[in-house]
């Protein structure tokens, strides 16, 4: 059969239920195969939209997502989502067309060195040189994307080879001698960690996106409850520990809560699970958690001691390790009373510094109020995607995620325009769940072409624009650190009329401006059939607080 037909068989063998993509010259054979392969293909309007939709699908479902693009500009358009997926460890297989093999390296029409330009931002990549190798490569790509620390894998297929006749033998087992992720945590290290926890008087559990990837949320909760340990999560880890739990400290880091950051600052033992001590977490590295010893649990050995030296490293799968750590911790029979003083101190911080804001005295909607209203209108139960900026941080702070895979955002790369396409993937992966986007008025303009995809697929996504008329996060930095010199951040004059834009795409559009009726108005929007674009006008110059200024220490939080 043709290599591209074998490709379709491979996708079916991997249980792929949907792919995202956009065709072009170099992947015409692939699209010919899609014509009657019986695989759902979602046509996006820009490859970046396709890539982020794939990410949204993968993050919402935990499954490997697939995205197709053509050579040259198709591939360059995929660079942002590939990099985004790498930074946030999202399992996506990207399959690109490439020019004919005899044109490779000649600057042929629509030739780009796709392998070369994505080399630093893939977990792995393949270039097909013999069509007969394609099926094995596809299965290897899925295996690599899914296992260990998940990530993007690229398969680049020259167009001539994609038409070659090959022999296809169904098989999905892979042979990768250089790739053996460690799953089982070392027993000795786990026991050592349990013992350290039993001896600690000021412990904190610090969980990241790895807990969600490993489906280890239940194990995290069980360990926290068994030891009365306070828990904080990174931006990527939100939902891994329920925001309603009394042991929840809130998010940590640059826009985290004081309770979380002060706890890290005074802790004697920090258990980092599936997180990577990013600079947005540590602030000034020399002054980060100065009294703490570190237990670092991660499936990627290269993360251990990369930024902060670990005292007890444990390499392996978080689910495996956390469940065994719980058993070992119970066996220590540690006296819970040793934490009384610590937990009181934390409670005092929580009481003294709740996430608060000065509400408006008129009917102007404060952005924080908008997110709290969204929480109320959705019952806290929606899958929420976001773009990047102030609105993202306010959503992280104020929505209160109760479960994993509900909060889908671009953390590592901070990609504006992520929210709408990611919601497409999330809604397709979870058709029975409520999916909402908290969009920035700036960010949304970076991928608004995907409204066409939303309408085409009949997806009931509700998009709420936190419309402050600014590239707000940049404006905040200019206000705080650049002497109020607002340089090229004002969007108000020349943003589209969002209600008309929605109408142009054939979907409903509404504008909300009144604080008093906001919750009810949002509920009405959520109750509408089909997609709705909801433009919420908020205070223009509100700042996202609290904040650890870049390069400062946690105890020097402002706002």
């Amino acid at each position, binding site marked *: 059969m043709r290599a591209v037909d074998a490709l379709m068989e491979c996708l079916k063998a991997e249980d792929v239920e949907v792919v995202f993509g956009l065709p072009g010259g170099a992947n015409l054979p692939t699209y010919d195969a899609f014509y009657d392969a019986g695989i759902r293909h979602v046509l996006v309007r820009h490859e970046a939209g396709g890539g982020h939709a794939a990410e949204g699908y993968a993050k919402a479902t935990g499954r490997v997502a697939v995205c197709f693009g053509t050579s040259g500009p198709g591939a360059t358009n995929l660079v942002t989502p590939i990099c985004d997926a790498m930074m946030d460890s999202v399992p996506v297989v990207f399959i690109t067309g490439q020019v004919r093999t005899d044109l490779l390296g000649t600057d042929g029409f629509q030739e780009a060195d796709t*392998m070369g330009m994505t*080399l630093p931002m893939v*977990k792995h990549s393949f270039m097909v040189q013999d069509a007969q190798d394609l099926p094995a490569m596809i299965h290897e790509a899925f295996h690599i994307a899914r296992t260990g620390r998940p990530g993007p894998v690229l398969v680049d297929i020259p167009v001539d080879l994609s038409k070659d006749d090959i022999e296809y033998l169904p098989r999905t087992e892979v042979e990768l001698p250089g790739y053996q992720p460690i799953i089982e945590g070392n027993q000795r290290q786990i026991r050592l960690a349990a013992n350290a926890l039993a001896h600690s008087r000021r412990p904190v559990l610090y969980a990241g996106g790895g807990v969600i990837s490993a489906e280890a949320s239940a194990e995290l909760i069980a360990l926290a409850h068994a030891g009365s340990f306070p828990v904080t999560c990174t931006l990527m880890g939100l939902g891994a520990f329920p925001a309603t739990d009394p042991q929840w400290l809130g998010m940590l880091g640059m826009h985290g809560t004081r309770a979380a950051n002060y706890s890290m600052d005074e802790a004697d033992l920090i258990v980092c699970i599936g997180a990577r001590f990013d600079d947005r977490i540590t602030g000034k590295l020399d002054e980060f958690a100065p009294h703490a010893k570190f237990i670092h649990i991660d499936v990627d050995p290269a993360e251990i001691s990369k930024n902060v030296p670990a005292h007890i490293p444990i390499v392996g799968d978080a689910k495996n390790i956390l469940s065994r750590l719980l058993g070992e911790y119970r066996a220590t029979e540690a006296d819970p009373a040793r934490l009384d003083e610590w937990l009181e101190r934390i409670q005092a911080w929580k009481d003294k510094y709740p996430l608060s804001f000065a509400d408006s005295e008129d009917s102007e909607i404060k952005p924080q109020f908008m997110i709290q209203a969204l929480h109320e209108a959705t019952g806290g139960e929606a899958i929420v995607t976001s773009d990047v900026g102030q609105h993202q941080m306010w959503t992280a702070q104020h929505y209160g995620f109760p479960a994993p895979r509900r909060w889908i955002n671009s953390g590592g790369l901070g990609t504006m325009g992520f929210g709408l396409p990611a919601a497409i993937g999330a809604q397709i992966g979870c058709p029975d769940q409520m999916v909402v986007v908290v969009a920035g008025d700036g960010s949304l303009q970076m991928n608004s072409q995907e409204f066409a995809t939303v309408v085409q697929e009949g997806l009931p996504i509700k998009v709420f624009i936190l419309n402050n008329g600014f590239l707000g996060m940049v404006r905040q930095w200019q206000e705080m650190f650049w002497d109020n010199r607002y340089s090229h951040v004002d969007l108000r004059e020349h943003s589209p009329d969002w209600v008309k834009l929605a109408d142009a795409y054939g979907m409903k559009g509404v504008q909300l401006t009144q604080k008093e009726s906001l919750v009810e108005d949002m509920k009405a929007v959520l109750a509408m059939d089909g997609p709705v674009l909801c433009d919420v006008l908020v205070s223009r110059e509100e700042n996202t607080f609290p904040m650890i200024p870049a390069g400062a220490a946690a105890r020097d939080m402002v706002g």
Partner: protein
Amino acid sequence: MNEQEITGPMSLESLQASVGVRTGRTHILTILVENKPGVLSRVAGLFARRGFNIDTLAVGPTEDPDFSRITLTVDGAVHPIDQVTKQLHKLINVIKIRDLEPGEAVQRELAMFKIDADGARRAEVLQIVEIFRGKIVDLGQLTIVVEITGTSEKIEAFEQMIRPFGLVEMARTGEIAISRGGTET
């Protein structure tokens, strides 16, 4: 640490973070890789991206045509070697990495020197070549080309000696290494 110590009482103060140290010496890493397209770019790109400096790099086939061996030297005074090797291990085509301890391996490098050696100075140059057991591989009217094989130190020592005579050009392969005795490299 034995089981007793782990299960018995322990104070947090006794915990040590041991990794991330700079060793202060040159490390020879031999890296067995699958012979796949782009593998050298992956290794080189990783070094560039993480800010690790490669001092020397040599690539060639092994006894098995499916695999190549990359030998590279890195300054352990500048970079934490464990970070370098852990990052390398993440590359799917990297099968094995060994950080060869100086005593357990034999290292060799080949270098060629084009030296000004006309008239009176020629005899003196030839004498130095003799001492270093170099080979004359090209003999011209004004210049000679000398091949030296040995450790990097030997090659550097030869370079020092010959510079005053007029070193026209130099080319070095970078070190390769293989473990001594029965152990695999």
